[in-house]
């Protein structure tokens, strides 16, 4: 394999890896605050892209994306308030089934609001033919948008959780729910906000990747599986590790195309998921404590 080809694969891997990382971060935010693993995370990504596509018909692109992010965040809040808020001591099994049910409902709603056609947002800069040369490899300018968005999301989230009162309150909830209540933090609102935040960044990711991978009502589920793989790979709850793990998975997946038939590309991610679950559920960067699941 020539150097340029390897570089091409790497770029492709980093691009998808960045998106997986953002989905994983969305998982982690909700998991950290609530102990729930939100199987509907992929649907937020899909909804964001679909909404932006609809809006972009009569709004300039940046406004459409902003509107999509806001609306998807509200959907996230709605999901929490309608389904999650008034559960009393649910078992893990119940939580899994509920979030799967929510994921199906969102997917079917999307199917009936839009339809099963594949769509995409227009490229942010240039079009599908424009490419930038990079050490012998060619990449679309959209790739830079994806990487830039990922970096921005990670940066802003780090600042948010470290320096703002709201961010610190959410971290308090994840560390010790009861103590947070006793400190006067409205835990129920923190939970809603974590859903909103996850949905919002998921929507943003969906918008930015849409020109490259196309959007369809079904595209949420495989993304959720890969996002979950990345979250576990990095250690559940650890968002910085999720970024590393995401890039790792993206690159492995991209390189695997040179070995396996394309139809089996997704099998690589699932295979990695199973291997990690069997041998080190606490992830590459986690310790045994992190491997034990949180209570809701």
């Amino acid at each position, binding site marked *: 394999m020539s150097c340029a080809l390897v570089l091409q694969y790497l770029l492709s891997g980093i691009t998808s890896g960045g998106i997986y990382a953002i989905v994983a971060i969305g998982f982690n935010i909700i998991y950290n605050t609530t102990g729930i*693993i939100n199987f509907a995370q992929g649907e937020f990504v899909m909804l964001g892209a679909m909404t932006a596509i609809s809006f972009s018909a009569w709004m300039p692109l940046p406004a459409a994306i902003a509107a999509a992010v806001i609306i998807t965040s509200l959907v996230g809040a709605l999901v929490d308030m309608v*389904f999650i808020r008034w*559960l009393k001591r*649910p*078992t*893990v*099994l*119940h939580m*899994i*089934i*509920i979030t*799967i*049910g*929510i*994921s*199906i*409902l969102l*997917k*079917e*709603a999307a199917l*009936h609001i839009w339809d099963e056609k594949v769509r995409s947002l227009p490229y942010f800069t240039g079009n599908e033919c424009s490419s930038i040369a990079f050490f012998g490899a060619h990449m679309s300018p959209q790739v830079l948008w994806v990487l830039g968005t990922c970096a921005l999301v990670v940066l802003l989230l780090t600042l948010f959780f470290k320096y703002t009162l709201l961010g610190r309150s959410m971290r308090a909830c994840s560390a010790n729910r009861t103590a947070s209540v006793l400190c006067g933090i409205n835990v129920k609102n923190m939970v809603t906000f974590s859903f909103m935040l996850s949905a919002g960044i998921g929507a943003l990711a969906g918008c930015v990747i849409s020109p490259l991978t196309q959007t369809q009502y079904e595209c949420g*589920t495989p993304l959720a*599986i890969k996002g*979950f793989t990345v979250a*576990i790979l990095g250690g559940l709850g650890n968002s910085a590790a999720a970024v590393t793990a995401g890039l790792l998975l993206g690159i492995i997946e991209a390189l695997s195309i040179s070995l396996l*038939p394309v*139809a*089996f590309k*997704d*099998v690589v991610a*699932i*295979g990695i*998921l*199973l291997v990690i*679950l*069997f041998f080190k*559920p606490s992830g590459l960067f986690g310790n045994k404590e992190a491997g034990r*699941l949180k209570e809701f």
Partner: protein
Amino acid sequence: MSLKRYLPIITLSVLVVAVQVAVSLTGQAFYLTQLTMAAYYTVVAVGLCMLMGYAGQISLGHAGFFAIGGYTSAALTTADFSNASHGWLGHALIKTGCMAAAEDLYGAHLVRLNPWVACLAAITATVIIAYCIGLPVLRLKGHYLAMATLGFGSIISKIVVGTKVFGGADGISGVPPFTITATFGVCGEMQYRIPNYYFAWAVVICAALLMHNLVNSRVGRALRAIHGNEEAARAMGIDTARYKLNVFVLSAVFAALSGIFLTHYNGGIGPSEASIMKSVRYVAIVAVGGMANLWGAIAAGAGLNFLSLRGYFGSYDEAVFGLILTATMLFAPQGLLVKPEWLAGITAFFRSSARGRGNGAS
């Protein structure tokens, strides 16, 4: 053994006969086709009910086992073994009836594998795969277990769609009937519609009987103990890992058997049978029926599958199952078809007043 214990089975049998008679008399015999298919799907629910409700382990990949059963028997019974029929092994197999000469649609000469042999091969494959998957997967708990089983089901789905042997996106068709006796075989032909209906429901009743026995046996108690408190079960000498694995494999075999029979009935199988959505449906049915309620699972399985197959849900089919899942978990986590508390209270009241005693707890 008291008759009371088998009352639900007897009720079910009577119901099955009653429905057939009613449907045939009113000239709506076409319902029987969907009822037969619903019966086979219900067998999966019975096995899953044992795994999820009694042993307390979630599986989001059971459609994978259904597919392993269905696809293996489909592939083996539609494959042409002409090349292998020469030589001493080939002749021996033909002599014992394992393989037989046949003709395809165009009259060309073929050698086909006996469906019984294919069935055996499919079950064996299922058992091996279930043990291999179950061993590492059942050490996981909660979300990790759910994701691992989801991953397994996903891999089966991808393999089935991406491999030529399994027909890719079109699946396998032209699956021959599964001859049970000289005059009857599991197939979709009109003249055998009523016998097939009874055969399918006989399979359900057998499955239910086996599960019912198991739940009330020493092993069933051990499973319920594992579900109640796994650590305490271990402290009582129960090898929890082995029990969980065996139940997992048993439920996988039920799913595979269902896949085999349904494939022969439909004359084919497609990749949608291995999809995640199908796995979720099975979980939904068990959840609605009440996790540890065998009869609830059967009722929900028969009802929901029948309605879905008849197309009553239209394009909202998936959405309905999603709604059922969510609504059940929110409003009736113990299941919709489980006796609600108020009904139990009334029953207890009548029972105690009939006995003429005042105290409540018995």
